[in-house]
C-alpha cells in the first residue's frame, strides 16, 4: 500500500469516526488504521465503544491509562490515543495495580482476552479482585486463543473443536462473572459488541464505579466459529442477536456459556456493590500512621 493510499484510508476512518461521534478521532490512533483485527472480529467495535466511553466519562483523557497483555485483545489499547502499556502475557492486571497505587488519580483500564486475564493471568486477576483495587478490567471473551491460531483456553466450551482439541474439548470452562464475584469484584457486567449502546453504558458505569470492575464482552471470533457451527463471519453475531437474554438479576451460577444453539446467552449488568477500595484503605492507613506515629 502506498503512503498516499494509506493517507486516504486514514482520512476516511477519521471522517467516519467524527461523523459517528465528535472527538472519537482524537482518542483512536487513526494513523494506525486499518487495525490488525480479522474480518468478523468484534474488537474494532469494542475499540470504538471504549473510545466513546472514554470521551463520555467526563474524566480527562490524559488521566486514562490502558494496560493490556498479549493476544488479539492485547493490541486494543495500543490503538487508543491514551497512555497505553502493552506488557507481557497475563501481567496486565498486576501492572495496572502498580500504576493505580503509584498514582490513584489515574483511571486505569485493563483490556485483555480470556486467555490473558483468566488463564495465564488468573492469579493476578483473582487477587486484584479480592483486594478490590479501583481498576477496570474488560475481558474480551472469544472462547479461544486467536492470535496463536486457535488453541483452546480456559473459557472454551466443552465439546468445542480447536486446533489443540481436534477430537473435541474435554475440559469445563470458566464462568467469568461467577469467578469475578467469588474473587470479590464489586462491579460485574457482561455484554456483546452488538449490544453496542448497553456495552458503552457498562463501560461508563465501570469508569464511574469505585472498586474492581469487571466487564466481560462476549466477542465473535472466526477462528472459533469456523470449527464450531459458526462457519461464516456473521454466524456468531447472529447467534448473539438471536439467543442473548438480558437479565440483570440473573443467578451468576447459571450463566455459564455453552454456545449451544438451543441455550440462551445471559447478558446484563449483574452486580454492583460499594466496598472500600485498597487505595482508600491504604490512604487511611497512611493518615493513621502519620497521626499516631510509627509502630515500635
Amino acid at each position, binding site marked *: 500500500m502506498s503512503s498516499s493510499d494509506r493517507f486516504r484510508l486514514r482520512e476516511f476512518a477519521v471522517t467516519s469516526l467524527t461523523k459517528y461521534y465528535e472527538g472519537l478521532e482524537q482518542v483512536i490512533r487513526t494513523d494506525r488504521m486499518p487495525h490488525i483485527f480479522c474480518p468478523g472480529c468484534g474488537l474494532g467495535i469494542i475499540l470504538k465503544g471504549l473510545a466513546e466511553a472514554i470521551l463520555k466519562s467526563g474524566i480527562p*483523557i490524559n488521566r486514562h491509562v490502558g494496560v493490556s497483555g498479549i493476544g488479539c485483545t492485547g493490541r486494543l489499547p495500543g490503538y487508543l*490515543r491514551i497512555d497505553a502499556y502493552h506488557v507481557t502475557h497475563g501481567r496486565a492486571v498486576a*501492572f495496572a495495580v502498580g*500504576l493505580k497505587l*503509584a498514582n490513584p488519580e*489515574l483511571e486505569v483500564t485493563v483490556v485483555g482476552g480470556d486467555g490473558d486475564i483468566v488463564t495465564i493471568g488468573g*492469579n493476578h486477576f483473582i487477587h486484584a479482585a479480592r483486594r478490590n483495587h479501583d481498576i477496570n478490567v474488560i475481558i474480551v471473551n472469544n472462547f479461544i486463543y486467536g492470535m496463536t491460531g486457535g488453541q483452546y483456553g480456559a473459557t472454551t466450551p466443552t465439546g468445542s473443536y480447536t486446533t489443540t482439541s481436534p477430537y473435541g474439548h474435554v475440559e469445563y470452562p470458566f464462568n467469568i462473572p461467577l469467578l469475578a464475584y467469588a474473587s470479590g469484584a464489586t462491579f460485574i457486567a457482561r455484554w456483546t459488541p452488538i449490544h453496542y449502546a448497553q456495552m458503552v453504558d457498562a463501560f461508563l458505569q465501570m469508569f464511574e464505579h469505585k472498586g474492581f470492575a469487571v466487564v466481560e464482552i462476549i466477542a465473535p471470533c472466526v477462528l472459533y466459529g469456523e470449527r464450531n457451527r459458526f462457519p461464516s463471519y456473521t454466524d456468531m453475531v447472529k447467534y448473539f442477536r438471536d439467543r442473548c437474554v438480558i437479565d440483570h438479576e440473573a443467578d451468576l451460577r447459571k450463566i455459564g456459556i455453552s454456545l449451544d444453539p438451543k441455550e440462551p446467552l445471559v447478558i446484563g449488568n449483574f452486580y454492583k456493590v460499594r466496598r472500600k477500595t485498597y487505595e482508600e484503605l491504604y490512604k487511611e492507613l497512611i493518615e493513621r*500512621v502519620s497521626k499516631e506515629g510509627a509502630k515500635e
Partner: protein
Amino acid sequence: MKSFHPRLLKPGRYFMQGNIATAEAALIAGCRFYAGYPITPSNEIAEWMSRRLPEVGGVFIQMEDEIGSIVAVLGASAAGVKAMTATSGPGFSLMMESVGLASMMEIPAVIVNVMRAGPSTGIPTLVGQGDIMQAKWGSHGDYEIIAYLPSSVQEVFDMTIKAFNMAEKYRVLTIVLSDQVIGHMIGKLVVPDYEEIEIIDRELPDVPPEKLVYPFDNSRLIPPMPIAGAGYRVNYDSLTHDERGYPSVDRDVSFRLVSRLVRKIRENEKAIAEWEEYYTDDADILLVAYGCTARSAKEVVKKLRRENIRIGLFRPKTAWPFPWWRMNELSKRVSKIVVAEINMGQMLHLVREYSARDVEIVHVPYAPGYMPPPSYIENIVRGVYGA
C-alpha cells in the same frame, strides 16, 4: 537541592542488619513503592518496608507472587514513582520474564536479590552466589542490566542508593545481588549527611504535553521518559517497537531498538563498573572474589602477605557490567588467578573470557549454603603457589 522526608534514617552511625540497611537506603534514594512476596532470606526487607513506607507516604503491597510483584513495581515506576522489590533465588527465577519487559519498555526499577543456595528450593536459610549469570542472561533476547555485588552492610546501603540512581539515569533495571550472609549480617553503618548523598531522578520530557514525544527516540541513547498521566499519551510496547512506541516487524526498526538497548549500557560501562583492588600492585597470584566470599578472600591475602607471598585481591563490585578491561590488565601482570565463589563456576567464565591466554586459572567452588572459610581458600592458594 533535594528535599528529604523528615522520617528518613538520620545521618549518623548505626549497628544494623544488612537487609534493614537495604530498606532504609531505598527510602533515602526516594523509593516510595514496594511490591513483594515473602521469601527467605529477604523477608526483613519487606517487613521493614511495610512498616516504614506508610510513614514516608509510600505504598507497600504484598502481591500474589513474585511475577506480580515485579510487574506491579514496573507499573508504579511507569507512573513516575521509584519502586523496588526484594526476593531470593526461586522468586528471582519467576521475575525473569519481567527483566526482559523492563529492558524492552525501558522502565527503571530495582530488584534486591538476597541470594541463597540453589538450585530450585535449595537451602532457603543459607547463602549462595548462584545467580550471577542468571541476572544477566535469565530473560530471553538481548538486553543489558546493571548488577551490584555488595560485601558489607555499609556497601549494601551505598549500593542500593546507587542502584536507584543508575536505574533512573539509564532507564534500566538494576539488581543488587546481595546474599544471605550480607543480608543477615549486623554490622557498622555510617549514614552520611544527606547533602553528600547523590540522588538522581529520571529525565522527563522538557516539551509541553501537547507536543509529540517519542518515548523511544533513537537519536538519544537514553530518551527522556514520559510517565503515565503526564499528558503525553504514549504507547509503551513489549513488542519490538519504533521510536513512537508502535509495534513493528521492520528489520531496521528491530536493529535500531535492540542495539540501542544494549549500547546505552555498553557505551557507559566504564562509568558504571566498579571494583576494589587489594595488594594488586606487585601481585603474582590474583584472587578474584566478590560478595561475602570476598571477606574470606581478604583475610587470606592479609595472612599470606605477612609471609611475603605476593598475592592480591580483585573484587568486582559490579557483576554487570563486569570490569573486564581491568581484569585483562591485571591478568597480564600475574602468573596465576584463583577464583573463589559459592557456586560451581559462574564468575569463573568472565575471568576466563577476559584474562590473558597464558595465565593459569584455578577455580575454588564451594558448597551452596556455606561461606568458604579463609583456611579453605588459603589451602588452595598454597597448593597453587607451591608453598
